[in-house]
């Protein structure tokens, strides 16, 4: 009896240790982005007293809302093996559209709805071209960048459209209780994105297409539809980002957002999504966004001079991806 018990104990202990080991392994295996993020967080907390305050953390989150929403859309697109270089211009277009509508007196909810629909239509157009005409997404979206940018400039004649509506401002600058509205919107988008990607058929098809398009087709998946759907969804989500940005700026500017697609792509890749498609997670993207936002915030708080910021940012991103790649290399070096 006694013997038996001790054996049981032993077994349990063994189980526990392996569990622990496995967990550690999993953290390192799947979560080296986590490590990078944690490192950055700790370093920032130590070297500047302004960083680790509730206020500032909310501030960082609020700042990251636009990027985060964009990055959620970008995650879907990149997992299909695509890319969206026009996301920044889409931001500008939707900002300009929503402010134009509001200034024209359209009620805010309707204005938002129309803007999101237009965003979806832009995505739909790109998705259709990409999936039916067999043109690389890189080039379609690159061309769309200048087209959309041109449209935004022609529409506004280069002058920002100013929104004076106080309610609209609340979207990007207001609070719901103690929490900034922008953060709440960001969380909702991320949660929807996560569920869609990981727990629905559509999401699973997105992965499959990015991995082996031919296999997907042979399994009866309507590859064209799914791809088109991803870009349409991406366009709609990016329009939401554009609306939040317009609210933050209380204006729609054709200049706003240019170049932010690169930040979004960087966040997605930092989060472990494979640029060649087939692999990735919204949770990873959130961490990638956090890394970029904390880095920007920290460098500002530390008052690093602008040229040095350029260099430091590059180096940190490189290091973070490198940390993340160690697991990949471990796997590859079989």
């Amino acid at each position: 009896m006694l013997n038996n018990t001790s054996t049981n104990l032993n077994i349990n202990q063994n189980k526990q240790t392996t569990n622990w080991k496995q967990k550690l392994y999993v953290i390192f295996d799947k979560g080296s982005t986590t490590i990078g993020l944690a490192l950055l967080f700790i370093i920032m907390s130590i070297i500047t007293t302004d960083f680790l305050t509730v206020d500032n953390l909310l501030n960082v989150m609020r700042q990251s809302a636009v990027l985060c929403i964009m990055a959620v859309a970008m995650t879907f697109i990149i997992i299909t093996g695509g890319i969206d270089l026009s996301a920044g211009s889409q931001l500008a277009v939707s900002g300009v559209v929503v402010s134009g509508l509001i200034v024209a007196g359209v009620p805010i909810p309707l204005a938002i709805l129309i803007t999101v629909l237009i965003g979806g239509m832009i995505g739909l157009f790109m998705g259709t071209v990409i999936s039916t005409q067999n043109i690389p997404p890189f080039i379609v979206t690159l061309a769309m960048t200048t087209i959309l940018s041109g449209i935004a400039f022609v529409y506004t004649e280069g002058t920002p459209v100013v929104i004076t509506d106080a309610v609209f401002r609340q979207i990007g600058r207001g609070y719901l209780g103690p929490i900034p509205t922008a953060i709440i919107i960001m969380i909702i988008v991320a949660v929807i994105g996560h569920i869609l990607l990981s727990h629905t058929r559509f999401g699973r098809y997105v992965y499959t297409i990015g991995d082996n398009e031919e296999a997907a087709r042979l399994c009866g998946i309507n590859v064209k539809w799914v791809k088109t759907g991803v870009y349409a969804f991406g366009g709609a989500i990016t329009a939401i980002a554009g609306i939040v940005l317009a609210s933050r700026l209380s204006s729609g500017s054709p200049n706003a957002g240019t170049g932010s697609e690169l930040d979004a792509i960087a966040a997605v890749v930092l989060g472990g999504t494979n640029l060649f498609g087939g692999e990735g997670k919204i949770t990873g993207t959130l961490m990638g966004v956090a890394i970029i936002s904390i880095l920007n915030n920290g460098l500002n708080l530390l008052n690093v001079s602008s040229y040095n910021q350029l260099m430091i940012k590059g180096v940190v991103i490189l290091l973070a991806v490198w940390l993340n790649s160690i697991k990949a290399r471990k796997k590859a070096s079989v």
Partner: protein
Amino acid sequence: MSLSPNERGRYEVNSPIIELKNITKEFSGVKALKGVSLTVYPGSVHALVGENGAGKSTLMKILTGAYSKTSGEILYNGKSIENMDPKNSKKIGIHCIYQELNVANYLTVAENVFLGSQPVNSMGLINWKQMNEKAKEVFASLQINLDPKHVAKNISIAQKQMIEIARAITQEAKILIMDEPTSSLSERETEILLSLVTELKNKGVSILYISHRMDEIFRVCDTVTVLRDGTHIKTLPMSEVQNVDQLVELMVNRKMDDYFNKIEVPIGETVLKVQNLSKTGVLKDINFELRSGEILGIAGLVGAGRTEIAQALFGLLKKDTGEILIDNQLTKINNPSDAIKLGIGFVTENRKETGLVLKQTVRDNISLPNLKKFTKSLLVNKKAEKKVSEDYKQKLNIKARTIEQTVSTLSGGNQQKAIIARWMIQEPRILILDEPCRGVDVGAKAEIFAQISHLAKQGVGIIMISSELSEIVGMSDRAIVMREGVIAGELSKDMITSDNILKLAFGGGISA
């Protein structure tokens, strides 16, 4: 030709050219090889057999340096070699035809033959003319008809396999590894390959030969090593192996009596009718029908158009003329999705390119076309999905640690099983299997055939394309034989013999 005991004695006196000693290999904590040793003598053909996942390919990849070993020693001519990599192994004359084909799709056929060692002229520039001519010569010697200037992308998998074989010849290797070289070849090409093996052996080349086709092992090999679950079971000269059953028993560790598990089931109504199907240059006037519960074998040589029939049925090949009727209803099948809706399933011949979703798990791969079944109120029910995948992992004996293992880390045969499982869950009315047992071991084959029979029993009509005559003979209720895009003949159950199939395939007639 077999060697006299005398000759074999001579080889054994020779010192070994390659010795693998106590090789172990771990993949993220799991041992794929547990202390395997292997000795290879010059001028001999050494067979490596074992179940899917036994570790054959892994052992060979360690020998070529494609994988690094966890522990153990590699000796070449008695000298220990550390840091083996593909470049070094190539230098010392080891060449490998890998199980998963390695063809650069956008390069020409000739360049693929000379991949990594294209001939150059005195100025360091590629000598295209010489390369193309040399490639032509090699193809001629292999009796295959391939244009060296053709881009490799659009050739069939069998032709890709032949490119790899041609590449192996041009390398003038001292040690040639062939990992299931015949798995996508038909009779004719297999014959050419086997005579090539003998020829090379006589020139003093050592050949390591992996195959699940037992008759080949008996025909060309001098020695055989059996692996099971990553351990070395036995090495013995072929002369001491009495028959296939003995070898199979060593592999699967149990007695096998029936390889096919064919169950006779009553044949039902016609489910599929193909009429006057034609496609210029590929298919001409194809007519046949399939009944529920029937297994229809399609035989023929590589390039005869078997795969194309399947593609036409599945909406992958635009036909010029012809009708496809299901349940006597005219159908329009423009894409796979149409075909699936009509209850057709299709296991393709090239699992890597058109089947597997490599970055995903075994579960994902099994459930892929079946997600609709697991979807409850918009969300995928992972529990149900897991249960079914787990079920089929057991049924087909898929060797994976868990169903959450990435499918790319499974052995070739087990990947094939996962794909077959995918379509079984679909519960199709018509299931097309294009080389379903490509790279599957004898034991697993029996399991797959049992499942196919089981499906037939449930009334599924099955079209089975195979290059292995024994499969057609053993499983079919009826068979059609293709030759150059036309149906050369149809054989009823009692007429299906290897002889008859071959005669039709090569363009002869058969006597009733």
